[in-house]
């Protein structure tokens, strides 16, 4: 509790706070209130955050042009709360919109790891789902889900901007469904157009 490097024996307020926090934590855990609160808070957090999905500004290939097209007034993804952010630290959703080459596999994983929880991944377009027309290539991975977990698949080559907005809608429903499960259990991935 107290730092051996400290050379004063005075009353240490941070040590008191740590002690009180530990005692409260133990008692909440014992009465299972902590679990209940975290699930409730998680659900509330998801309910609030699902309509404000900040997407990373990542443009890999052709689907990125349809991603840009979904932000223009004709399709207007911004009215659904989808805004593009430049930094992975500020974004909730990694929208992978192109094939992942061997050179880019490492940067994509690093971008994914830099994103803070809760984070979601959308694989947009055939190339991100399974390698697409380049599945036979020596340089393209067979889908982005070989390196990072994917929540929503949006088929198409390229998918129309309406399909992308539908994908965001299905992601919103999924966020509510998986609730605030601690540990980030993802559940089954959703495929746009499956029903």
């Amino acid at each position, binding site marked *: 509790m107290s730092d051996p490097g400290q050379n004063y024996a005075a009353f240490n307020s941070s040590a008191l706070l740590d002690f009180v926090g530990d005692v409260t934590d133990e008692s909440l855990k014992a009465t299972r209130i902590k679990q209940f609160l975290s699930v409730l808070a998680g659900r509330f957090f998801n309910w609030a955050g699902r309509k404000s999905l900040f997407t*990373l*500004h*990542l*443009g*890999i*290939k*052709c689907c990125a*042009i*349809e991603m*840009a*097209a979904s932000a*223009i*007034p*004709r399709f207007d993804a911004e009215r659904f709360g989808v805004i*593009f952010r*430049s930094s*992975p630290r500020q974004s909730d959703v990694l929208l992978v919109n*192109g*094939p992942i*080459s061997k*050179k*880019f596999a490492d*940067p994509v994983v690093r*971008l994914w790891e830099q994103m803070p929880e809760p984070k979601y991944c959308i694989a947009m377009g055939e190339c991100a789902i399974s390698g697409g*027309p*380049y599945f*036979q*290539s*020596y*340089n*393209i991975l067979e889908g982005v889900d070989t390196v990072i977990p994917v929540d929503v698949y949006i088929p198409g*080559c*390229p998918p*129309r901007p309406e399909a992308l907005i539908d994908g965001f809608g299905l992601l919103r429903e999924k966020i509510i469904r998986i609730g605030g499960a601690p540990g980030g259990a993802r559940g089954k991935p959703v495929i746009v157009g499956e029903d």
Partner: protein
Amino acid sequence: MAQMWITMGPQHPMTHGLWTLRVKVDGETVVDAEAELGYIHRGVEKIAEARDFTQVTPYCDRLCYVSAMTWSSSYIYAAEDLLEVEVPERAEYIRCIAAECQRIASHLMWLGAYGPDVGNLTIMTWALREREMFLDLLQELGGSRMHYNYPRVGGVTRDIPPGWSDRLIAKTKLFEKRIDEYEMLLDESTIFLVRLQGVGYATAEDMVEAGVSGPNVRASGVNYDVRWTHPYSVYDELDWEPAVEKPTSVKGSDCYDRYRVRMEEMRMSCRIILDAIEKIPGGRNTTYANGDEMILAKAPTRAPEGATGFSNYECTRGASQFYIQGGGDGRGKNPYRLSIRSPMFITIPFVAETMIGYKVADIPAIMGSFDPCIGETDR
């Protein structure tokens, strides 16, 4: 002051694609720059060796995804040179009109991406709104908004639908007025002018020596255009001139000249479209059935070993070339070697050198003015 290398990494909002630009800066001044490509290298040249000549067309659409029609047409001209096919004239007219629509759509995408680079977000909404008009027209021809798979060896897949020519003429005439609106917005904006003028000088001879072509060279005052120096399609029958812009200094053209030449090119494309749609053989209101000899000629599907085909085509970003060697798998059904020449692959190292001597804040302006599209670069 200490110098350091900054990596404008693969994920960057202003690089128009997935590539790394490493700049060495001394304070705010760029001292050296290096481009690193290959993040979306898909090996299309290798995959094409396992595909039919018709099956390669969708891959060529996806090379430069912003201007798909010009790239698949460019490949088809090389395949026709290889297979020795005579294309009917109506098909050539349709390809020409589709390519010019695509050129306008591509320049609008460039404008829509370039404005935000230099701080003008309005032009993105305006330019992409007009781009949707041309994408709708091309969707009626090809079926999809972006990758049309429309040209075939010997012609085109389907004829222009009924009423398409009326829509085309109406939209093109509307668009000509909209270009004036863009110029009103941008040319009277002090910030835009200050960010673009005096930045990124490059001379015509330096560019040609480095292998740059297309609107970037025409911005430096020489009206070299593959459409008249090595004529293909029906450009020799239409009334048009290449858009050229006077360079502002002995150091060459700056970013503002490159922006102006693309605006003039859009106007010129409108002129070509309106001229071609009137001169189209068979009339603009008739629609022939798929596979009719007016729009598609019978073409051999196999190329013997030793045959080669080469096409030189004015794509939106420069001169693209395809070189196909016949005699591949399937007793010549597949190409033995498909080699793609991408103008941007050569331009991007040149752009990296152009940035030397300017400030870090000028990097997006210079980079965007050369109109990079990484899909064709990495093939």
